[in-house]
């Protein structure tokens, strides 16, 4: 491919990326530098990092431990809930009721239009009923989180679903005598492994970062305990925020490398064209 004269070359584009990347790294670097400040304000040391593990601070950080535990449990429960509820539905709709594909997508995209702060206004009465039935542990939030996660999970699974010839596979299984549930478990799930994994990891990332619903429903999670701790110890809050961001980044990086087509993309109405189009390396603006 001939280089056109005057075309901004690869070098310029990479330079632009480097500059923007450096600017975006500033807050992260600032968080690290902030957390390394020594207690008396001069110089730097690991004092705040080691204080997190110190036994004498155990009482102060108790809510943090509770928040982290609750969030991890919530993430697991939400991932299971979403996968168990959404995937069979999507598969059945994809295979049996193609007319419902669009409505299902619409339903899964409603949480994008109805933000969490609006949803939580209506969740309080629902949750007083939920509390009566299932207790008031933080894990009950999984029911609300499943809804907020729907757009992302649907997107991840849909991309994989579109790229897999599920119809032939299930028909083959059926002709070989497999029942519905067995087909689901032994044929569908392994074929959609990437999409399911992507959905699960994205669910975990969303749940770990969710604050709105947890705080206004008075439950203790990682984010609400971070805010509470920041009032008395901003350093611990910054350290844990850094670690949480890193964890979410690692989760999504793994998903991205494992190669699911729909992973990491946000949720948008409209067809997932990019996932279905063939994707060789492109040089669009050379």
């Amino acid at each position, binding site marked *: 491919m001939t280089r056109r004269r005057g075309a901004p070359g690869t070098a310029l584009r990479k330079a632009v990326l480097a500059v923007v990347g450096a600017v975006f790294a500033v807050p992260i670097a600032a968080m690290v530098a902030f957390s390394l400040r020594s207690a008396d304000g001069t110089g730097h040391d690991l004092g705040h990092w080691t204080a997190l593990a110190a036994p004498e601070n155990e009482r102060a950080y108790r809510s943090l431990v509770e928040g982290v535990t609750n969030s991890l449990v919530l993430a697991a429960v939400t991932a299971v809930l979403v996968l168990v509820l959404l995937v069979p539905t999507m598969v059945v709709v994809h295979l049996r009721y193609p007319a419902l594909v669009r409505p299902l997508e619409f339903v899964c995209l409603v949480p994008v239009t109805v933000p969490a702060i609006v949803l939580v206004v209506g969740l*309080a009465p629902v949750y007083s009923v939920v509390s009566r039935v299932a207790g008031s542990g933080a894990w009950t939030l999984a029911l609300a989180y499943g809804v907020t996660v729907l757009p992302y999970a649907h997107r991840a699974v849909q991309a994989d679903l579109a790229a897999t010839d599920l119809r032939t596979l299930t028909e083959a299984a059926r002709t070989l005598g497999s029942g519905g549930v067995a087909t689901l478990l032994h044929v569908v799930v392994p074929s959609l492994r990437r999409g399911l994994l992507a959905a699960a990891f994205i669910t975990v990332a969303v749940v770990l970062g969710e604050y709105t619903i947890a705080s206004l429903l008075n439950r203790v999670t990682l984010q609400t305990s971070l805010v509470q701790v920041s009032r*008395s110890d901003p350093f611990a809050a910054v350290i844990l925020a850094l670690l949480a961001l890193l964890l979410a980044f690692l989760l999504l990086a793994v998903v991205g490398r494992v190669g699911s087509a729909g992973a990491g993309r946000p949720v948008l109405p409209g067809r997932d064209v990019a996932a279905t189009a063939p994707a060789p390396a492109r040089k669009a603006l050379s």
Partner: protein
Amino acid sequence: MTPTRPLAAAAALTVLALGLAGCTAADAAGADAASGTAATATSAEDLGGMDALIAAAEAEGELNVIALPDTWANYGKIIDAFEAEYDITVNSDSPDVSSAEEITAAENLAGQDTAPDVFDLGSAVTLANLDQFAKYKVATWDDIADDHKDADGAWVHDYTGLMSVGYDADAVPEPGTLDDLLGSEYRGKVAINGDPTQAGAAAAAVQWAALQDGGSADDVSAGVSWFGELADAGNFLPTDPTPATIASGETPVVFDWSYNNLAAAADAGGRDWRTAVLPGTALGSYYNQAVNVDAPHPAAARLWQEFIMSDEAQNLYLAAGAYPVRLAAMTEAGTVDQGALDAVGEQPADTVQLTTEQTEAASALLAGTWAQAIG
């Protein structure tokens, strides 16, 4: 494939779910039967005396409290003292929520064993939610003046503070009068504890400014305009002061209750934090103690009431700089902690307390004008 298998599975799940629901209902019913008498007791005598109350409370074993930060009016020490005296574990939930959120939590968790047992509320929220409270009169009921308690025992005042200005003596000079704070030494340094349209302590700061600056308890607009002047001078800091910001020096001047400012001195990371109750009209506001009508641990809740109104807890309030409601009675009986009283100073005789109507009028005024005043 026939539809019977999935139907059977669904039926099994339904039975399981109903069974679980039934179990939890049965448990709840059982628990209610055991402490049924405690849930309706209006005084210790109804249960057969203090010892019976203590026994019933210790049988319950736990107490859920909410919105009681350790450094607020010595609640940390009060909770520790309660746990030390009785064999009851105190679960201190959500220390930073507002009074309104305490009621919301009680509503959301109604019937659960994590619902709050007792409340410590601002007056406005108390008077708006009387059905949420169980009527209970503590042993020392008669020590308390009539305007500090509900006639039926739904609520009772527990302590009050005085509105004060806490300041870092190393960073700023001592403010002698309110208008000193408008000076240039306080540029970008003066904060109040919360948003007056949301938090009681902040609303009280504005009311106090009104009283100091020529307004009255009926009309706090003078306070709003004074804070407007503060903002125009560039002295107003729209940050929430927390122990962290005080220790780091971000908020060198804080309007807050005297007991909070006094507690901040202990936590101030080496700074010389002082509390100034400015001369002139003093403003106080009693908080209200109440028992949740749906308390999961009714006997423990009532025992907590008794404890709060006992000399021990009232003196702990005093040690933190808060004036307990039984101060007059304790002084007369000689049970007051004289050292603490001397350290804090006598309660000023002309402390202004806003009535319900005045509080409502002030809230309405703040809701309409605060945001504009501070820009």
